[in-house]
């Protein structure tokens, strides 16, 4: 359990392929910080650098004030959970969890006691004599988590731990991770491409794109006030309005920065007349469960509009109303 300070981390393959660009990040003691981004944005690379599985090329990583950039992976005392579980196939569940403890100079009784205790907290005690191949994916990931926690790591690293699980297990597992993380006050870095699972359990989220952090904030702040167009698009904003156009048409909006775009969530666009309106033609209607989504072709391009009204006809004209308070200003990008 410790605070992590990442400074100016850089990594490039060959000459011109930069994976991470001068990346700095601080993770507070006991905090669960997520790194959210599309595949190829460098999030897994970053986690591998922190873990020590990849050597550091430039920059430094400090844990509780100590520079660990040159400490080999097996001496870092970090816990890691892999997407593919990566359990030791030739060991029982008990042996898998106890493996890390055996490295530490502890008596057999203490190892056994600690292993059993972590197996109990993770609900695996009944499976302790089974082999990994006899377990379901969800159970295997639980073992993987137990194995990582057993060594009482300074930092817990989670590399897309939920991606191989089906929808129901995913929610169960993420709640389990959250529960254990809070209980043990474990400093945790959680890498994922799924905004829902990361918003649900994170204290803060770092949205990454092309080797850079675009926005670092609480889940609420990111959801309500995405800073850049990339972040907005990644978390489900689909409607973009250029400020120039808005000014030309006499819209009122909060104009506080030099950004070029405004954005709005599909559910915040209303149908109505007055100021801040835009005409368009409905081209499609999709049922989303709790509402209907209309795709409206306008002079600004496609707008997605979520509403309870199912009676708008495809092909008909619609006047969309954009409330000033719902329009979010993006920063220049």
């Amino acid at each position, binding site marked *: 359990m410790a605070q992590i300070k990442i400074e100016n981390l850089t990594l490039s393959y060959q000459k011109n392929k930069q994976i991470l660009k001068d990346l700095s990040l601080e993770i507070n003691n006991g905090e669960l910080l997520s790194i959210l981004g599309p595949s190829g944005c460098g999030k897994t690379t970053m986690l591998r650098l922190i*873990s*020590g*599985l990849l050597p550091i090329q430039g920059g430094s990583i400090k844990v509780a004030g100590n520079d660990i950039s040159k400490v*080999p*992976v*097996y*001496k870092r*005392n*970090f*816990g*890691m959970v*892999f997407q*593919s579980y*990566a*359990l*030791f*196939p*030739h060991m029982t569940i008990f042996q898998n969890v106890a*493996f*890390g403890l055996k*490295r*530490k100079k502890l008596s057999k009784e203490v190892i056994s006691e600690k292993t059993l205790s972590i197996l109990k907290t993770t609900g695996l005690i009944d499976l302790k004599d089974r082999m990994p191949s006899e377990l379901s994916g969800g159970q295997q990931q639980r073992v*993987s988590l137990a*194995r*990582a926690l*057993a*060594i009482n790591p300074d930092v817990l690293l989670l590399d897309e731990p939920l991606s191989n699980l089906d929808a129901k297990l995913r929610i169960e597992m993420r709640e389990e991770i959250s529960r254990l993380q809070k209980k043990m006050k474990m400093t945790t870095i959680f890498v994922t491409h799924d905004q829902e699972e990361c918003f649900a359990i994170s204290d803060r989220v770092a949205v990454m794109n092309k080797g850079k952090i675009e926005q670092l904030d609480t889940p609420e702040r990111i959801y309500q006030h995405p800073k850049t167009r990339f972040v907005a698009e990644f978390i489900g904003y689909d409607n973009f309005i250029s400020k120039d156009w808005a000014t030309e048409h006499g819209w009122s909006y909060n104009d506080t920065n030099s950004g070029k775009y405004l954005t709005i969530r599909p559910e915040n666009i209303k149908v109505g007349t007055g100021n801040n309106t835009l005409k368009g033609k409905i081209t499609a209607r999709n049922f989303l469960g709790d509402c209907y989504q209309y795709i409206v072709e306008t002079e600004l391009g496609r707008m997605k509009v979520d509403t309870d009204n199912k009676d708008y006809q495809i092909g008909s004209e619609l006047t969309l109303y954009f409330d000033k308070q719902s329009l979010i200003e993006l920063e220049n990008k």
Partner: protein
Amino acid sequence: MKSKIRFSSVIGFIVLLLLILPLMIVIITSFGSETAISFPIKGFTLNWYHNVFQQPDFVEGMKMSFIVAILAATIALLIGIPAVYALTHFQIHHKSWFQNIFLNPALIPEIVIGFALYQTLVISFGLPLFLSLLVGHCLLCLPYVIRLLTAGMMDFDNRIEEAAWMVGYNKIVTFFKVVIPNIKQSILAAFILSFITSFNNIPITLFMNGPSLNMLPTSILNYLENNYDPTVSAVSVILMLITAALMMIAEKYLGLNKLT
């Protein structure tokens, strides 16, 4: 469609027959009571098997062949395992070039390898026959070892190794505690196949054979030059049995489809 199936199964049957029949005849003649190999046999006896063990050449040859095969397979594994680990784990320049080098002995005629080794190791460097023979057999085994272990290593998720590093084991300890146990089937299969390859080899062995160094397959050839009695059949059957037994073990642990 039906006639096609029948046709192919007839062909298959004929091929099988051609493969099995000579072996069957060897097996049957090994029990024949006449002093010359003849078929069909007129009487039944186990004397020829007894006679195999009365021939010092055969007994010594068998011992020597066993020793050489075990040593050659072991050394090939000791070279092959680290080589395969490096080839599958590290970014190596000219990787395919290295892979070709390791697999090369399988492409060059064995008799050429035998001659070349004889020329260089025995004649030029004056190495003892036994050592030279061992080198030759190792070269012979290496391609099998490399190929089988590469397949085994590819099936093994590297993340498992990383997981062991993460919980505090350095790379060497991890290699022995995590990697080796998980590729042991490939190691066993590679050992068995190497053993068989070495044990049955003639082309290389022929060059490194001498009064002081007697190997079973060459002993059989030598024996045949002077005698034509069913002892040869009997020793052949023994050789077949050893090979078949080892192949069955390999099959049980790995499945023959992976061996080829």
